[in-house]
């Protein structure tokens, strides 16, 4: 039997806050009350739409929009998690009626990808906004936005803010099989300033989260520079081989 593991978990090495994949998420606050339209972009094309109402009377502090489910492509639609509140706007046609969510204006919208290849960004705009108002484009994180990254593959990564040109490094340790079950430590936080990351050098464990707090316009790219294949090097065998247990 095979486990149902999304291969993107181990084939997509590296993250980009402007092109969300399964291991990256964005948190954005709408700020002002109103009706917002969320357009899901995959490159130039709009693959799905849904609507978020920012209502001062709403008790919801968080709404989760699963971009994989929002996508028009059926093969990219992953399963909803309980927090997604059934987000599956679908439709694919720009402007088509999608599912609606409600959140407090001071609350947050979590954009995540539950499965599939991802590569999404979102464009959020008030329905009644002035035509000159470009709205919010997740390729440029604004002040107060968060980008959450989980890096599984051990190795050394470069971290680059394409908008401020800030640079940093991220080292992910190789997992150790010990006396106790490994649980990833709590996430670390990185402040994205005008020209730097604070801290600029990170040493984390595999699966440990990194939360980037945008203090200035940011697009975070995390790129593998030097893989770490552990003490024995790459252990992916060309074939499984035969092992036959013998009782004595």
């Amino acid at each position, binding site marked *: 039997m*095979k486990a149902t593991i999304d291969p993107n978990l181990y084939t997509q090495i590296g993250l980009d806050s402007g092109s969300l994949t399964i291991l990256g*998420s964005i948190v954005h606050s709408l700020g002002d009350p109103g009706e917002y339209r969320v357009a899901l972009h995959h490159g130039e094309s709009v693959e799905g739409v849904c609507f978020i109402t920012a209502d001062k009377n709403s008790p919801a502090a968080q709404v989760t929009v699963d971009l994989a489910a929002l996508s028009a492509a059926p093969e990219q639609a992953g399963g909803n998690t309980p927090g997604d509140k059934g987000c599956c706007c679908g439709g694919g046609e720009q402007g088509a009626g999608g599912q609606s969510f409600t959140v407090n204006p001071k609350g947050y919208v*979590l954009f995540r990808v539950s499965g599939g290849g991802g590569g999404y960004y979102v464009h959020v705009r008030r329905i009644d906004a002035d035509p000159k108002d470009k709205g919010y484009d997740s390729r440029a994180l604004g002040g107060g936005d968060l980008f959450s990254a989980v890096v599984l593959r051990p190795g050394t990564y470069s971290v680059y803010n394409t908008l401020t040109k800030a640079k940093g490094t991220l080292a992910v340790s190789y997992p150790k099989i010990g006396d106790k079950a490994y649980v990833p430590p709590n996430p670390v936080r990185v402040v994205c300033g005008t020209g730097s990351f604070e801290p600029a050098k990170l040493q984390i464990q595999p699966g440990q989260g990194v939360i980037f707090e945008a203090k200035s316009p940011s697009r975070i790219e995390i790129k593998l520079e030097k893989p770490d294949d*552990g003490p024995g090097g790459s252990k992916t065998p060309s074939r*499984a081989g035969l092992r036959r247990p013998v009782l004595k």
Partner: protein
Amino acid sequence: MSHITIAASSNAFKQLFNAIRDNFTFAKSDSGNFGPFSASYSVKLHLSGGSVQLNDDNTVEVQNLDVVFDTLKLTLCFNLPGFCFGGFCLIPDPWNGCLVGIPKICIGGPICLPIDLSGLVSKISDLKANLVAVYFVDPARDPSWSDLDAEFNGHPNKWRIFLNPVFVHVDPIDIPASLGNIIENLVKDAIENMIPGPGWLKDLILAALGPIFDLLKSILGFVDDITSFISDLLGNQFDLLGAIETAVADYFAAQNPLYEFEDPYPILPASGGLIPVKIPIRDLTSTVNSKEMVVQANVGA
């Protein structure tokens, strides 16, 4: 006083027993769901050895009769808890835990461990029996046939003497301690096969699982060691020991007589145009004492 008395020595009796014992085979398979795990097995076994003792209280006792598991294959299946990441808090709530959190993503799945226990030997530590004589009418015999017709057609009536077990006890299956290491390797192999990804991902999952033995303890729910768990699973949960005891008792008591006498019993074979001479046997009984088996019968009309 009986008309006929025949005796077989203790050694002759043992030869009769050994001949029947060697023809015994038993095969069975079963499966079951035990909540957090499921299991299935297939078994094929035969009997060997054993010491036979005739007692003055008209009982036969067989001890240390080997139960040889020519095939004993057990498959354990369960869901591997795997490795979860994410699930952490992005924006803490100063009053109540977490304001914005990220859902968990878990890697795991079902694995099955094929455990081959073929070659193990258990014992019937004690089998106590008496002898029972049963009159057998061949179901293939035509009711209109005479005794002579039945003999010519190969379906004569018979007196059969069975070893009738009144007590059979099969010892628990003694699983070797080395099985613990073998099962740990089976789990690792199963993970290797289950996870299609690269080596670092497998190592990450193995690290997240922790010591395999502790993992198995939590999933399978055993306290001491996995060998006792498997012995209990096969012997008690599947009641394999009970099934073997029933099969052995039924085999000796109803299916395979120690000895049988044709009735009427041929005294002289047919020859020279004359029909065979046969005498009817009645009231056949069989007993044992510490020295021999004794069969007594009368000549009927």
